[in-house]
């Protein structure tokens, strides 16, 4: 392959030349490479995988060929995964190999940079939530919610095994929660909603002293901003259950602070700051009250001092973690999403408080504006809930939702089909320039 890196070495990323290999074999007293493997013949693999090697160029081309089969759609999609414009500088700085290729910070003296960045990330979440302790990442919001459920078991003073979640909850998130709930034998149950927000009286009927945790979201999966969080918090605390709030850092820049509505844990996905659309790739945030510090899952960065008495950072309270505590750890999490958190912190800093608040306001007004425009279309009612929305909303269509989705795809747009005649539309600044065309296309397909 003329476009390949045809060094006198065995494979592209193994740098030993034939002469070096020979010298090294000699040094260890081995005749050949194969003799270094202590594998009994009965389990030795003497076949091939059947995977062709390719040049770097050809590999890139092969990926391009495969991904070329994806349709080129402008996505008005949300429901837990959001696209916001990520400035180039985030990619540029986060891609520096000292960050990207480093390991978990077990040697803090040569990992101060990443530790400080994660400390700053934690601090930003503390400001956004008003709660005292943020860990430095979970996999995504669904797994963070699962961890919150297990936390409720560990910290609650009275026993209880019911986890109450809203009727409007993304099925995928609930399915993950169920898996996390399986080990500790927790039961996940739904409570009803009313016109897009929590039906607090109904929740009051459902809740009991066997309730370990109540989970609510704002904005909800339907994009509705919850209006009675304080009441939910009070109700939950009346039963000594944990109040877990789902949100995201952009929404939190504008909405009332979780600490002020009584949230004990805040979970959610923070990847929409710092990482664009990535097929559901996430960043689970996990923020809780200081009193639960020693039961927090995942990694925590703390400030300390070095031998020269200068401020330094280190992973701390590792006795909670699997590599020390083994089966008594607060979670099995080891590899997390640290690099995604780094990007989120960078993006948040780039925006600054002004930029974050503006972006959050835009999420409210943009959804409102597009809903208004769709509502003007004959055969469309948008939004279906008479509430404040954030980024997204549900629309009822006379046409079947599946037809709307298919017809819009033919026009180059994607929306969600949520129910037979319900579609969900999400809009951010990244689709701003396509809005007029989208509304026009919607008008055609809604006929």
């Amino acid at each position, binding site marked *: 392959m003329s476009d390949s890196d045809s060094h006198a070495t065995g*494979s592209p990323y*193994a740098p030993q030349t034939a002469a070096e290999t020979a010298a090294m*074999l000699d*040094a260890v007293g081995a005749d050949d490479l*194969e003799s*270094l*493997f*202590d594998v009994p013949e009965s*389990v030795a*693999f003497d076949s091939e995988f059947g*995977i062709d*090697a390719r040049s770097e160029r050809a590999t890139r081309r092969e*990926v*391009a060929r495969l*991904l070329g089969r*994806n*349709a080129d759609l402008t996505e008005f999609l949300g429901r837990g995964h959001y696209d916001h414009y990520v400035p180039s*500088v985030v*990619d540029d700085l986060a891609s*520096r*190999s000292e*960050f990207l290729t480093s*390991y*978990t910070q077990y*040697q*803090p*003296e040569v990992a101060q940079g990443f530790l*400080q*960045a994660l*400390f*700053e990330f934690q601090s*930003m979440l503390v400001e956004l939530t008003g709660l*005292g302790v943020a860990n430095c990442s979970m*996999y995504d919001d669904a797994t963070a919610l699962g961890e919150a459920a297990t936390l409720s078991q560990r910290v609650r003073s009275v026993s209880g095994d019911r986890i109450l979640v809203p009727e409007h909850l993304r099925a*995928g998130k609930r399915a*993950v929660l169920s*898996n*996390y709930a*399986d*080990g500790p034998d927790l039961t996940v149950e739904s409570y009803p909603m009313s016109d897009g927000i929590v039906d607090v009286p109904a929740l009051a009927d459902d809740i009991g002293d066997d309730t370990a945790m109540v989970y609510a979201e704002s904005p909800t999966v339907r994009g509705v*901003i919850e209006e009675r969080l304080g009441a939910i918090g009070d109700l939950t605390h009346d039963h000594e259950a944990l109040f877990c709030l789902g949100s995201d850092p952009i929404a939190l820049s*504008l*909405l009332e602070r979780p600490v002020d509505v009584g949230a004990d844990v805040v979970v959610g996905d923070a990847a929409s700051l710092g990482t664009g*659309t990535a097929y*559901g*790739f996430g960043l689970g945030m996990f923020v809780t009250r200081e009193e639960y510090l020693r039961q927090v899952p995942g990694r*925590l960065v703390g400030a*300390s001092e070095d031998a020269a008495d*200068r401020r330094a950072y280190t992973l701390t309270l*590792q006795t909670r973690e*699997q590599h020390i505590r*083994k089966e008594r750890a607060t979670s*099995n999490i080891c590899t*997390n999403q640290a690099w995604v958190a*780094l990007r989120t912190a*960078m993006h948040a800093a780039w925006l600054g*408080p002004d930029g974050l608040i503006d972006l959050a306001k835009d999420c409210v*007004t943009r959804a409102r504006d597009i809903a208004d425009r769709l509502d003007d279309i004959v055969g469309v009612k948008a939004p279906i809930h008479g509430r404040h929305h954030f980024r997204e909303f549900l629309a009822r269509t006379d046409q079947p939702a599946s037809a709307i*989705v298919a017809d819009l*795809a033919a026009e180059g747009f994607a929306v969600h089909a949520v129910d037979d005649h319900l579609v969900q539309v999400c809009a951010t600044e990244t689709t701003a320039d396509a809005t007029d065309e989208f509304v026009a296309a919607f008008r055609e397909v809604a006929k």
Partner: protein
Amino acid sequence: LYEPLLSEKANETVEVDDSPLPDDLTRDSLSLPDPAEPELARHYTRLSQMNYGVESGPFPLGSCTMKYNPSFTEDVAGRADAAIHPGRPDSTVQGTLALCHRLQDYLGRIGGMDAVTLQPPAGAAGEFTGIQIAKAYHEHNDDERSEVVIPDSAHGTNFATAAMAGYEVVELPSGDDGRVDIEALEAAVGDDTAALMLTNPNTLGLFERDIEHVADIVHDAGGLLYYDGANLNALLGRARPGDMGFDVMHYNVHKTFATPHGGGGPGAGPVGVREELAQFLPNPHVRERGGNYEHYEPSNSIGKVHGFYGNWPVLLKTFAYIARLGDEGLRDASAKAVLNANYLAEQIEYEVPFGPFHHEFVASAGEQDAADAAKRMLDYGVHPPTTKWPEIVDEALMTEPTEGETKRSLDQLAAAFNAVAGDSDAELADAPSRPTAKRIDQATAARNPRLSWQALDDT
């Protein structure tokens, strides 16, 4: 030079006014750093300079396989046509599904497994997935079991995962040769055994030569054999977990397939299973039907372990790495990884009590404190090995150079080891002096936790 916190450089408190929402739904103010881009760029550039990555020098962290991360895989993951939303219909993401299907197939071939899910977002999530599958399997057979057996030398995640899935952990002491003690295994395994979790080669780098016997013992008792893929880089093309009798396994893509570890993550922990267990794989799974690809729910799926489809960008890098190397490159990677470990071990003065090892070895710092020795290595400009683990070796220096080091850099690394071996305890205790930060007081950090800049202000 130290770098101030962003909050110390440019914090700003902004009142929230002109909100499009009612006041009672709106916070009052937000106080966060507000650097302009030039200042932001310098801040993170400086932070990066205080961090050590694979491109900074040797990074022989045992059990972590810190191999070189090919630059082009970042470009692959950053492709515009890869940036798609998980909410799209299958018909509009045929490219993504095709690639996932190919990766499932590649991983199946490499591990000798019949079906592979890409959903678990990390190795530990893969373990959880695998153990949940084992649990589902037993429940499906109306055969509830309560224990998972794990060797004492195993990764901490194995223990935590088993507990998280609701199992009792039965810890298996290692034999004198550092491998599974067959008698102890026979004693530990029984009707309650849901699974044995095993790494092979194990954390000492030793191949479990009795693996077929081990498998028979577990299978005869009705248990399943779980393979922790952390050390698969030792065996590519030489032996496959599926051929050894493992029923379930996870792949650590940041180890075996060179996706960057990102200072802690993201990773991906695909899980492979034997045909019989495919019905329990997470929902959804990707299959091909007449040239088209689709998501479907396996008949007895355990459900989901990630909110969407897992860590897609990481999976793209995995695919690119495997497709670049192919059979030949993957085989060579393992051979050179094993050669490098053997060569390095030969060059260092510390004793290496167990062998023959493969891609990693565990030396003993002897009279020295292994953690202190590691700090001292920083002064010689290299990253130290993993220390004080596994406990079967006193003052363990668990060392895995990977295939990415030249003979020259291994010689430098050996020189660093040997220099430290000759240093006094006092020199070790004072180390490091070379990095920006000197020895960091971890005890105080834990005793008086300050986990945010807000907490610094309080003290």
